[in-house]
């Protein structure tokens, strides 16, 4: 994705509210999508994934929605907690190549107590 320099898009939510983080992709060959959470000083941590033959997948407190028509992916976090504060990245790979991932520029989630 394009660089946004030091100014990541930021989403601020109140503890207990639901959060929605969005990601747009541009390549029609994108086939497999992953959301990662990255806390300060740590590497990206896998949250949830979805394949292009699905439009919704649920995990524990998280839901990923995929809209292939508009090339849009979202991550919904229910009952957001302070421990959810982090930078969230979407990543995707493309048909025929399971091994190379393309990352978006990330969204910083701030959870206010």
């Amino acid at each position, binding site marked *: *994705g394009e*660089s*946004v*320099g*030091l*100014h*990541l898009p930021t989403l601020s939510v109140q503890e207990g509210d639901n959060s929605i983080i969005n990601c747009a992709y541009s390549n029609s060959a994108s086939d*497999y999508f*992953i959301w*990662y959470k990255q806390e300060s*000083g*740590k*590497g*990206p*941590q*896998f949250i949830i*994934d979805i*394949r292009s033959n699905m439009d919704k997948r649920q995990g524990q407190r998280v839901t990923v929605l995929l809209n292939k028509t508009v090339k849009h992916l979202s991550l919904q976090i229910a009952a957001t907690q302070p421990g959810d504060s982090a930078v969230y*990245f979407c990543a995707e790979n493309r048909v025929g*190549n*399971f*091994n*190379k*991932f*393309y*990352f*978006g*520029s*990330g969204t910083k989630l701030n959870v206010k107590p």
Partner: protein
Amino acid sequence: DAGVTQSPTHLIKTRGQQVTLRCSPKSGHDTVSWYQQALGQGPQFIFQYYEEEERQRGNFPDRFSGHQFPNYSSELNVNALLLGDSALYLCASKIMDRDQPQHFGDGTRLSIL
């Protein structure tokens, strides 16, 4: 079950020097990818190793090179360091050609003075 481990955690070098970073993949994984993450940006793919060979490469100069050993561990070498090489270097592992997410280490923070 150990995840992806990287060493060292932090490193300070000066311009023109050379550096080697190390990565041990998650147990059972045979493919290692290296990413560069500048402050406030998403990870950028450098290259990927499988069966001790470089299989894919991103848009990085030849100053960036790597190696994979028979035990699947890997090294990233950067020659003639530039100030712009200052970043977090992430290693990720997976099983080749499996439609599964990569697992990341916590990275090496490289600072160039």
